[in-house]
């Protein structure tokens, strides 16, 4: 009987040792030694009780150990899943930050580009207006509109002399009078010879003349009045002050 109890004791110990080895590594490192210690102490208690106490104890504890092992494996797996999800979350947050950073950088670049374009645009239109005025002045600055149209028509047809210039219509281009120095003029020029072999006159339906501080000039731009608007915008020295302006 005593030998049977000894065999059962050794069998129980061996079984518990093997089962304790089935716990997940982390749990095993921390608790398996303690669990085995407790089981040994309790096995000794059961041995002391005699009868069927020891086999009942081995059976009960083995079952509980198996349940506990399954639970710990499941817990370990859940823990790994949580860690993986946490890592994935971190990666996602990092990617999001990078994208946000890139988007902000792109927006800043666009803002900077726009900020650089504004002075560039104003610089360009200022330069354009200056070129237009310089070219106009090169053609001549005249004391009156009549002088201007007569002189500018004079050299236009080779071998022909201007007999008469009729100004059909002349008034500031803008109806609200904000730019009174820009004039729209239509005229007919009469020559002493027929330039095309058909007629002695040329009709100019729409020409832009500027009445500047120094006198009248002819502006040959495609967009009538644009140069004048730029001149007004930059308050160029050539522009006649509106208050001092007297219609001719």
């Amino acid at each position: 009987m005593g030998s049977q109890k000894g065999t059962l004791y050794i069998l129980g110990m061996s079984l518990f040792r093997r089962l304790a080895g089935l716990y997940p590594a982390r749990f095993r490192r921390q608790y398996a030694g303690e669990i085995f210690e407790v089981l040994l102490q309790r096995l000794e208690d059961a041995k002391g009780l005699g009868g069927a106490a020891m086999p009942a104890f081995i059976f009960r504890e083995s079952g509980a150990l198996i349940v506990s092992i399954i639970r710990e494996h499941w817990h370990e797996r859940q823990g790994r899943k949580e860690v993986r999800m946490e890592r994935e979350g971190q990666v996602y947050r990092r990617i999001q930050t990078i994208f946000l950073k890139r988007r902000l950088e792109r927006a800043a670049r666009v803002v900077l580009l726009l900020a650089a374009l504004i002075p560039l645009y104003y610089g360009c239109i200022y330069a354009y207006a200056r070129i237009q005025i310089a070219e106009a002045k090169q053609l001549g600055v005249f004391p009156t509109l009549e002088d201007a149209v007569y002189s500018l028509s004079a050299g236009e047809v080779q071998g022909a002399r201007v007999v008469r210039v009729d100004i059909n219509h002349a008034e500031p281009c803008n109806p609200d009078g904000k730019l009174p120095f820009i004039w729209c003029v239509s005229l007919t020029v009469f020559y002493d010879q027929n330039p095309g072999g058909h007629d002695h006159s040329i009709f100019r339906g729409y020409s832009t003349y500027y009445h500047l501080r120094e006198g009248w000039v002819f502006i040959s731009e495609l967009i009538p009045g644009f140069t004048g608007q730029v001149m007004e915008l930059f308050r160029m020295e050539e522009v006649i002050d509106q208050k001092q302006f007297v219609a001719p």
Partner: protein
Amino acid sequence: METKDSLPLTETSFFILLSLVTPKHGYAIIKEVEQLSEERVKLAAGTLYSALRRMLENGWIERLDDSRPASDREGRERKLYQLTGFGQALLDMETGRLKALVNLASSRKTASQVWAARRELCTSWG
């Protein structure tokens, strides 16, 4: 973790926490729980250590090295477990909850006694 989120405790958890008011090792916890529950709750070693692991992770208890001399520990390298402040608060709240339940059940009992007395009175009149 909020204390309220952890309530109510299971009976096993309640007894383990109750036993850990003073620091104990695994074997002593099993014995104490058996004693407190009047042999009703018998903890298996595997069940106990799974519960201890969970309680440690939740911060209800802490694990200590046994600083007693080797002769008192029977030469064994044991770890001691004891309640943390959070665990103590949890235990107090659970005790309060159980007390409230007992009070409620007691008041119900009184009411049923009143009804029994009324019934008796009616029968005697009838």
